[in-house]
């Protein structure tokens, strides 16, 4: 079996064009001249394997795919993402971050494969919903889907304490990543990357939860569309409206909110009229029908804390449910600063608030990188991957040498004590 320089050159060109980079971009990133990149793509010479490996990394491609003696097909889901989103297309640094995350997802699938984990069985259901005809339809679909999914998962009407855990239990990976300004999240879904949701790392926890829920809706209802980016630019698209409606209803279930309010003598029992959907920055207007109650700022803060939603999202949800009038919502929205003070006080005293145990206040970020390391460790312990390979994988999630050493020492120690595993690894370098 051979691979000609011309064919390899063609693959390099296809892979480069697929992610929208120029020969100059490649040359600059790798310290080559543009004519030398041109020569490689023309098949005038083979790159050496190290050059090839670095080009593959730059293009977000697997070097083994470029060297596959069979057919070569570039990664289409990523390319589609970069093409459709101008912000991502223009931001080389963040585009590289997304490629890095996609590689992480791909490696994730590889580790699961080693361990015999069948992602197909883990994957959540897919709902076959018709395309919404208008905003009202989209809002209703999102709301109903949230109720169906809550019911399917036996979540009851209470808050979702750990959204990442919920996603992972559904076979969906959750990552935080630096995304371009205006991009709140995205999801990848194909055999190579698995089902993965990505939200903006810089956002506060409540907003990330909303984004995770939003992307989860895409995953449940729009999986066939492949990769999707959620951003301010496409906020008005009906599928985005549906996803926002889902997120609001999923995080802030009507019955749960009403029960919580009733415990303080507020709220109504009648089924609400949906009027709008919070989409993270603004409301998508629908019909307005007010069922205003004497809901106060501290009620909203309490609900937001209890359900792990932002103050703003909770206000819109209460508006959607007819529990606040438009004017009441606007007045309460003016009290953001006071709400933030109250929220921090509640977080320090009330055991029921999600924020009190969540990452935003403690600085503790949690996403599927933990599970990735868990799988990598298991593969290493079973001698399915080498130590050097483990090092490459843990670097993908920025685990440093010291933490890695401590973990591997613990594994060696456990192996040495276990009657079923090999007794350590004499003859191996631990650095």
């Amino acid at each position, binding site marked *: 079996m*051979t691979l000609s320089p011309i064919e390899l050159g063609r693959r390099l060109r296809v892979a480069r064009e697929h992610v929208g980079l120029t020969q100059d971009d490649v040359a600059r990133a790798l310290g080559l001249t543009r004519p030398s990149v041109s020569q490689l793509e023309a098949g005038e010479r*083979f790159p050496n394997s190290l050059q*090839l490996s670095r080009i593959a990394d730059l293009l977000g491609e697997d070097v*083994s795919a470029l060297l*596959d003696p069979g057919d070569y097909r570039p990664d289409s889901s990523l390319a589609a993402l970069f093409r459709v989103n101008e912000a991502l297309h223009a931001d080389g640094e963040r585009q590289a971050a997304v490629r890095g995350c996609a590689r992480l997802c791909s490696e994730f699938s590889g580790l699961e494969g*080693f361990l015999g984990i069948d992602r197909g069985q883990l994957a959540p259901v897919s709902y076959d919903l018709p395309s919404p005809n208008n905003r009202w339809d989209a809002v209703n679909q999102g709301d109903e889907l949230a109720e169906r999914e809550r019911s399917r998962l036996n979540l009851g009407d209470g808050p979702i304490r750990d959204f990442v855990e919920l996603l992972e239990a559904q076979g969906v990976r959750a990552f935080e990543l630096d995304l371009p300004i205006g991009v709140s999240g995205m999801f990848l879904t194909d055999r190579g990357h698995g089902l993965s949701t990505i939200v903006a790392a810089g956002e506060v926890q409540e907003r990330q939860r909303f984004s995770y829920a939003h992307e989860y809706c895409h995953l449940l209802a729009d999986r066939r569309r492949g990769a999707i980016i959620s951003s301010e630019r496409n906020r008005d698209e009906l599928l985005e409206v549906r996803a926002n409606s889902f997120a609001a209803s999923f995080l802030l279930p009507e019955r749960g909110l009403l029960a919580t309010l009733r415990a303080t003598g507020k709220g109504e029992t009648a089924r609400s009229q949906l009027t709008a959907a919070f989409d993270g920055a603004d409301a998508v207007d629908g019909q307005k029908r007010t069922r205003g109650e004497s809901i106060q700022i501290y009620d909203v803060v309490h609900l937001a804390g209890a359900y792990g939603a932002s103050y703003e999202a909770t206000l819109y949800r209460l508006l959607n449910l007819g529990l606040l009038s438009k004017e009441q919502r606007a007045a309460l929205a003016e009290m953001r600063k006071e709400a933030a003070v109250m929220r921090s006080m509640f977080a320090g005293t009330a055991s029921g608030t999600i924020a009190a145990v969540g990452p935003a206040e403690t600085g503790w970020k949690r996403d599927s990188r933990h599970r990735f390391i868990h799988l990598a460790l298991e593969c290493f312990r079973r001698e399915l*991957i080498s130590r*050097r390979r483990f090092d490459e994988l843990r670097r993908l999630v920025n685990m440093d040498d010291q933490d890695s050493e401590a973990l591997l020492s613990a594994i060696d120690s456990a192996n040495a004590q276990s009657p079923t595993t090999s007794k350590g690894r004499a003859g191996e370098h*631990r*650095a």
Partner: protein
Amino acid sequence: MSTAPRVLLVVDTSVLVNLAHLDRFDLFAATGFEAHVPNHVIAEVTREDLRDRVAAALATGHLTELEITESVELLAYGDLKRRRQFGDGECAAMAVAFTRDWAVAIDEAGPVRRLVLERLGSDLLVTTPSLLRLACLRNVISRSDLSLIVTKLEANRFRMPKLEVDEE
């Protein structure tokens, strides 16, 4: 002066780093090997003092840098990468060893060792301990040198098995 041909050897990061810690790249030639290092492996040595020692060994000819540019070796490298089991340097070193039937110097105890034994057999597998044992048996290093070397490697987090050096 011996005229026996040297055994061609491709060196992986683990053994390279150990000899860099010892600054004893001369051990390859002294034990009958002609040592070649893939550029992937050199790139994996990140500590500056060790990189300097590797660079010096390349300059003096104790080591020769090697690039994979032939189609058959590139495909072998790609095949090993596709398995997702090995580090990049390990893939490069094994690709060279497997396609050229060279010996390979590698310390990894798990899947790499299994594959090397399967593809090349134990005669073409060199490890830091086996290299030191050979050096001791050929009187390149003394028993007391060996003891110091073992201490130094263990101080650099290499777990050395007990070496039997009484007979060849």
